């Protein structure tokens, strides 16, 4: 009998009729156009939001209009190509990193299979190297001698509307999580290439509403949700009532109080949406337990900075507000809550954008006396660093049995892990607040953690399928520890994670809930004078 070859049959040289034809690409990647259809793109920015932003000082967001990615005509300005190429020239001149990243890739492929979008889709343009090639090919064509002379032979590609559409497709299929960068032998930060692509697209009015409306809201009222100062305070007050009902402890946080020692800034989702509000209740209890002299701000009422996903100038402006508010209130330093990308902005961009922060002091814990030298420059300490230090110095007491309903694992959020190196503090805290917890497999945690799949303003419902498939590598590791150890909680330190992982789990591992680390701290915290009810689900218990 003839030996049947796997590869021979696989390319459909079959005798009998088959229902399947396979999807082997029969064209080079640069000849496969981006096709937009419902479900594979996020809605474009609403015209009124873009108009508003374009009217603001220090930023530029032109070409506000109604348009759809599904239309052939994207209503671009007549000289769109000139704008894009000039924009690229400006950026190559301003950002040396971009120039280096454009030049130094040797296409070794180390990044290719590290991206959660590629791993979830099998789409070659989701390989970080090829995603970057979408920009690099235009760079070669117009900015290198070889490209100018040899064009396509030198890997160059002319900037066309088709290329622009491809940029939009794939710049918004990257969460700037930087996992690929960990594996790049040259240290190319592909996230910064995505950032540049998004910036260039904004020059001709191409962006997504889920990024731009929060940006507009933050610029207007100080937070993504567009909460006014009164509403922001009102929401925190509601949580204080909940805390009192649950624990018998009345917490009385202050707002916009001049002369407080510490300004506390956290993502606004913590005061508004489940499960973030339980994390917020954890913060409130912790600060009460140690008698911290702190204030909230109703203006710097957002840790998140969607400017990072938008443009350099927008990021700078939104970040600047936090420091302006710290200066106005005369605090000594800033304590930051469980946020992801806020920490990337703080650690990687703040200093050169808005520094030096010489009006603040090097953070020193008023409870333990620990000086946070690591935050000497930014003057901003992460809540997990702060909490871990309290634990290490024996300043807070826990009753682990109050977390008996929880068997967690820990998800390293991309930005705290890869952009600030916050790896051990959360684990140290977990060791002290729960009896037992389990790590996910080692190639899915710490620096190599997998993204939730919905960061960089991609957590919108119109691209639910895309989010579920890009979140698969994360969910797959959670499923493993759920099945092996009975893990029922995915703990994390990021507001976007808390929101998006909840949805991700309900699709892939519905038995697992998502909790902020400070929620677990709040659950277990023993406070003098408390009268806790029997809280079978911790701070989530309905009483």
């Amino acid at each position, binding site marked *: *009998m003839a030996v*049947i070859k*796997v*590869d021979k*049959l*696989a*390319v459909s040289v*079959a*005798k*009998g*009729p*088959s*229902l*399947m034809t*396979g*999807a082997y*690409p029969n064209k080079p990647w640069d000849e496969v156009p981006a096709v937009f259809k419902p479900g*594979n793109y996020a809605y474009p920015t609403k015209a009124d939001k873009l108009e508003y932003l374009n009217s603001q000082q220090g930023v530029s967001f032109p070409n506000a209009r109604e348009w759809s990615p599904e239309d052939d005509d994207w209503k671009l300005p007549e000289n769109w190509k000139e704008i894009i190429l000039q924009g690229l020239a400006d950026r190559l001149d301003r950002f040396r990193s971009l120039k280096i990243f454009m030049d130094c890739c040797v296409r070794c492929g180390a990044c*290719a*299979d590290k991206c959660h979008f*590629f*791993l*979830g889709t*099998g*789409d*070659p343009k989701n*390989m970080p190297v090829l995603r970057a090639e979408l920009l690099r090919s235009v760079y070669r064509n117009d900015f290198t001698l070889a490209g100018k002379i040899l064009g396509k032979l030198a890997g160059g590609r002319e900037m066309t509307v088709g290329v622009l559409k491809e940029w939009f497709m794939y710049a918004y299929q990257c969460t700037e999580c930087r996992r690929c960068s960990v594996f790049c032998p040259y240290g190319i930060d592909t996230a910064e290439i995505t950032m540049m692509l998004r910036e260039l697209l904004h020059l001709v009015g191409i962006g997504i*509403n*889920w990024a731009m*409306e*929060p940006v507009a*809201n933050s610029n207007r009222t100080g937070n993504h*949700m*567009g*909460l*006014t100062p*009164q*509403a922001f305070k009102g929401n925190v007050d509601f949580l204080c009532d909940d805390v009192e009902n649950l624990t018998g402890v009345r917490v009385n946080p202050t707002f916009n109080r001049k002369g407080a020692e510490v300004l506390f800034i956290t993502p606004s989702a913590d005061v*508004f*949406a*489940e499960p973030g509000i339980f994390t917020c209740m954890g913060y409130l209890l912790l600060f009460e337990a140690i008698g911290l002299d702190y204030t909230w701000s109703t203006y710097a009422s957002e840790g998140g900075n969607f400017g990072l996903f938008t443009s350099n100038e927008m990021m700078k402006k939104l970040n600047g507000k936090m420091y302006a508010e710290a200066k106005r209130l005369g605090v000594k330093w800033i304590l930051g809550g469980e946020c992801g990308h806020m920490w990337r902005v703080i650690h990687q961009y703040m200093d050169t954008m808005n520094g030096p922060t010489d009006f603040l002091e090097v953070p020193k814990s008023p409870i333990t006396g620990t000086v946070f030298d690591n935050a000497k420059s930014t003057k901003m300490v992460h809540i997990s660093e702060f909490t871990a230090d309290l634990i290490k110095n024996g300043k807070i007491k826990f009753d682990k049995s109050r977390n008996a309903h929880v068997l967690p694992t820990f998800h390293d959020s991309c930005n705290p892990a890869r952009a600030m190196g916050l790896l051990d503090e959360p684990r140290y805290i977990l060791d002290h607040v729960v009896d037992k917890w389990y790590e996910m*497999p080692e*190639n*899915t945690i710490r620096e190599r953690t997998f993204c939730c799949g919905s960061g960089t303003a991609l957590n*919108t*419902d119109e691209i639910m*399928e*895309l989010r*579920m*498939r890009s979140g*698969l*590598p994360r969910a*797959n*590791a959670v499923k*493993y520890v759920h099945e092996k150890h009975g893990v029922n909680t995915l703990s994390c330190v990021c507001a976007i994670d808390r*929101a998006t992982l909840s*949805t991700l789990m*309900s*699709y*892939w591992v519905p038995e697992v809930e998502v909790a902020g680390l400070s929620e677990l701290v709040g659950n277990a915290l023993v406070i003098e004078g408390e009268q806790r009810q029997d809280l079978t689900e911790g701070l989530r218990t309905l009483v």
Partner: protein
Amino acid sequence: MNTYSELAEILAAKQKQILDIWTERTLGTYSAPGFFKKSLDPFANPVGVQIRSGLAALFELLRDQAEPAAFVGPLDQVIRIRAVQDFTASQAVVPFLELKWVVKEVLAQELQRRLLADQLNEFECAVERMALVGFDLYCQCREQLYRNRIQELKSGRARFTDGGCPSRFLDAAARQEQMENMRK
């Protein structure tokens, strides 16, 4: 139930070959499948490994003529992934039916025997039954996606846009818009 026992023996003997081709063709439905086929690390390559092991489990259940309920787990393992990828419904479930083709190609010689040809009908019916359960699961996955959307809206997690916040009503324009919407 022992409807295709002779065929089952041959299926067992040719298991590796059938599975290799079935997996190869299924992973071949992705546009850049090289890594999915190559890497056997379940955490580095969830799509490839989950589909590979799901198909293997399904084949063994068919070979052993297992009860329909036993198929749900491995079917879900495969279809939950394909239900959120860039496939139509038929493209998502077609790998299950493709097994019929693979078996006929691999067993072309053996199937010339009358007895086995009869048993093949039974086997194919079992494969189709499996594919239909796969289609039910596909629909459940899609429904779950819609429920996720609703849940996000209800929980307030998604309220970055479209005025979820009460304070928006302080904005005269938003109030006006709200009134007009209510009138509609």
